[in-house]
């Protein structure tokens, strides 16, 4: 009982000195917020929160026939594209300035080729430094090209069928050109009601799935994970400072046991960690509309597991380095790669397979997964337990190793 009291007092002391220091708020709150905002905007631009990403495509239409403008309309109707018809000079200028990253050229002969059933190749210029958007845009443009060439194909089929049935040799029959034109119009009308539709649905348990702002669902948990690691690891390693300044030795001469001293310190760091992460969660919800709050139980489990894991990691680091001065360099060497590999710096989806597998061997990978499962998939307590469990497991291993290797003198 006495030792528990000592432990609690040491924890309280840590919290008191931490929150008396103004730099706590800069590191703990101000910086992560700036990063969340700037990177969130940087990833997603200023797109409205509920819109999927769209790309600008410049179109130079040299085709005088009907299909050129039809193609532009189809492109513009695609949800991922915003098409704009421009002169060659204007389009070149936009590509040069980087205002648009894709330029489609419609050759002069496209309409006549289509009518004759001849193939046409359309040059699509993409800016080399944006391969991801180029890939998405290419698929979307192909879909639009398909729509246009399909209407011609349907009309041609219709003409062939009539020929097969020997319609045009009969008295009172229309000319082939007339028949083709009628069929083309019928095809375009028919295309408006496609027999097969694709019903796409994001698989999430959140009620309003359109409300997820994609940029911030990455940067809110990402920066929270990264900055909390700095905050908590620095906190845990401050025990080294106490050792160097002699306050630890002084504490050891008191009746407080070693376990109570170290435990108290770690409890303080852990509580400060929970407060820190919770603050960032609240701000993420209020300022960036990230849906953190839909399962408080799941969130609480993840926050506690994460804070425990990182506190233990800090303890282990404190046990492995010799002096407090080394902490600066070591924590940077430890935390930045952990954040990057775990998916806190950029979406884990865009890295190669083997890198995605590496993430699942790191506490940051599980932290990001658990937090994102809550805000993106709408998971509840039971579903995030595996992620939280992995964090606790990492934490236990770090803690045992840390306590074992730590030198009090």
């Amino acid at each position: 009982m006495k030792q528990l009291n000592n432990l609690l007092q040491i924890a309280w002391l840590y919290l008191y000195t931490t929150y008396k220091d103004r730099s706590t708020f800069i590191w703990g709150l101000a910086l992560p917020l700036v990063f969340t905002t700037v990177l969130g905007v940087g990833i997603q631009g200023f797109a409205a929160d509920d819109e999927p990403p769209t790309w600008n495509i410049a179109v130079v239409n040299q085709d005088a026939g009907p299909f050129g403008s039809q193609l532009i309309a189809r492109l513009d109707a695609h949800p991922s594209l915003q098409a704009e018809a421009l002169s060659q000079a204007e389009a070149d200028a936009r590509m040069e300035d980087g205002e648009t990253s894709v330029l489609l050229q419609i050759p002069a002969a496209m309409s006549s080729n289509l009518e004759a059933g001849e193939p046409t190749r359309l040059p699509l210029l993409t800016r080399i430094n944006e391969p991801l958007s180029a890939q998405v845009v290419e698929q979307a443009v192909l879909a639009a090209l398909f729509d246009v060439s399909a209407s011609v194909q349907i009309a041609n089929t219709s003409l062939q069928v009539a020929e097969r049935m020997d319609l045009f040799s009969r008295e009172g029959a229309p000319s082939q050109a007339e028949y083709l034109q009628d069929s083309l119009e019928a095809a375009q009308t028919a295309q408006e009601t496609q027999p097969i539709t694709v019903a796409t649905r994001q698989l999430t348990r959140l009620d309003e799935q359109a409300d997820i702002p994609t940029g911030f669902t990455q940067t809110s948990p990402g920066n929270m994970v990264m900055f909390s690691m700095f905050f908590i690891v620095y906190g845990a390693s401050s025990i080294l400072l106490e050792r160097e300044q002699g306050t630890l030795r002084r504490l050891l001469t008191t009746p407080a046991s070693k376990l109570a001293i170290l435990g108290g310190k770690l409890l303080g760091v852990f509580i400060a960690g929970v407060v820190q992460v919770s603050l960032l969660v609240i701000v993420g919800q209020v300022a960036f509309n990230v849906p953190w709050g839909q399962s408080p139980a799941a969130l609480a489990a993840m926050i506690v597991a994460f804070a425990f894991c990182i506190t233990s990691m800090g303890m282990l680091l404190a046990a492995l380095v010799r002096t407090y001065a080394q902490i600066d360099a070591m924590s940077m060497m430890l935390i930045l790669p952990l954040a990057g590999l775990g998916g806190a710096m950029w979406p884990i989806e865009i890295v190669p397979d083997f890198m995605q597998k590496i993430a699942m061997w790191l506490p940051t990978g599980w932290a990001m997964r658990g937090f994102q499962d809550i805000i993106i998939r709408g998971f509840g307590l039971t579903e995030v337990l595996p992620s939280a469990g992995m964090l606790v497991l990492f934490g236990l291993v770090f803690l045992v190793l840390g306590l074992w290797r730590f030198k009090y003198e």
Partner: protein
Amino acid sequence: MKALEIAFKDTLARFRDWKALVGMLAAPLMISALIGLAFGNLSSDEAPIENIRMALVNLDDGELGQAYEDVLTSPDLQSLIALEITEDAEAAKARIESGELRAVLVIPAGFSETVIPDNEGDSGMASVELYTDPAASVSPIIVKSIVERISASINTLLLAGQVSGDAIVPYAPLLGAEMATLGEAIGAELQSERFDFEELTLSLETIATGEDEEPFDPFAFFIPGLAVFFLMFSMFEGSRSILQEERHWTLQRLMSTPTPTWQIILGKMGGTFLTGLLQFIVLVLSSALLFDVNWGNSILGLLIIVVLTVFAASGLGAMLTAFSRNENQASVVGSAVSLVFGALGGSFFPTDGLTGIINIASKLTVNRWAMDGLLALTVERGGLADIQTPAVVLAVIGLVTFGLALMTFQKRFVK
């Protein structure tokens, strides 16, 4: 000149300190290696996203469900899509939630029967269901495009039959008994070689602009960014050493010598500048050797931007340190400014997309102008003419901040 002597001595001391070297050199190089691993696939000719894990649940017995399967397993899509075929839709959907799959396509039972016209020519409408992973932003768009294209192909086939029939009906009196062969004629036409719904008459020729240039090199973007980011840290840390010396009373001892105060301060600031310059040059050389980074074609241009970037960064570091009350405050302000400038100034992502107030804030940072200058050389392979604006802005920032720092330190130490 005493100032030079002090500068050299300080520089040497910093490069002998391994902890300082970690921050100055090891950390940026290590993160560069990491970024190279993560984004390395962007630089090759291959599509940046491949092996999208997806499941097909085909509950349809007919030929159309089979058509989806055939296209999705075709050689064209083999590298893009890693498809598995399963029968349990709910289990497959659960695997999206567990992060194993990015998408699940469900073809409902009786799908072919619904949409293929019966003997009377009547047909209905149906949907295939595509479930995507909300945690992914790019691959669902790609999968959706592909599924929509397959659907569109089949729609074309169905509509071709429908339109062919509808178009000829008004001429039924001309055809008379021949009309009875309509179904046969449509069937024959749709199966003829001319009708290939996989073959597009319109196709794309994708051209990456500037073909004679090298493909996108993630290092050419991220390494300059990281170099500037970590330069800011070491410039603030270097400037702080003057306050540290004040605390240890070594500065006061130095001032009791006949060396004029301004020379001592200039020497200290010069030491930081020299350290930064060496740090940057070592990063340029080692990244060129280790990661094969091409720093552009203009060595003179690069030298100008590097010198001016270090000048501006060390000036800013000295100025903010001079304004700080004590070492601790300088440390907090320095780290905060380094991080915020890094985020705003484009050390982590291209500033192209920034607009409005964030873009203005970005232009207030040393990092932004340094990056504008460096990227003009590394990514765009420009020359001296392309770096004029950033060079001038950096020089002005450097002169103003250096001047203010010198004056403030003078006032502070000469009593």
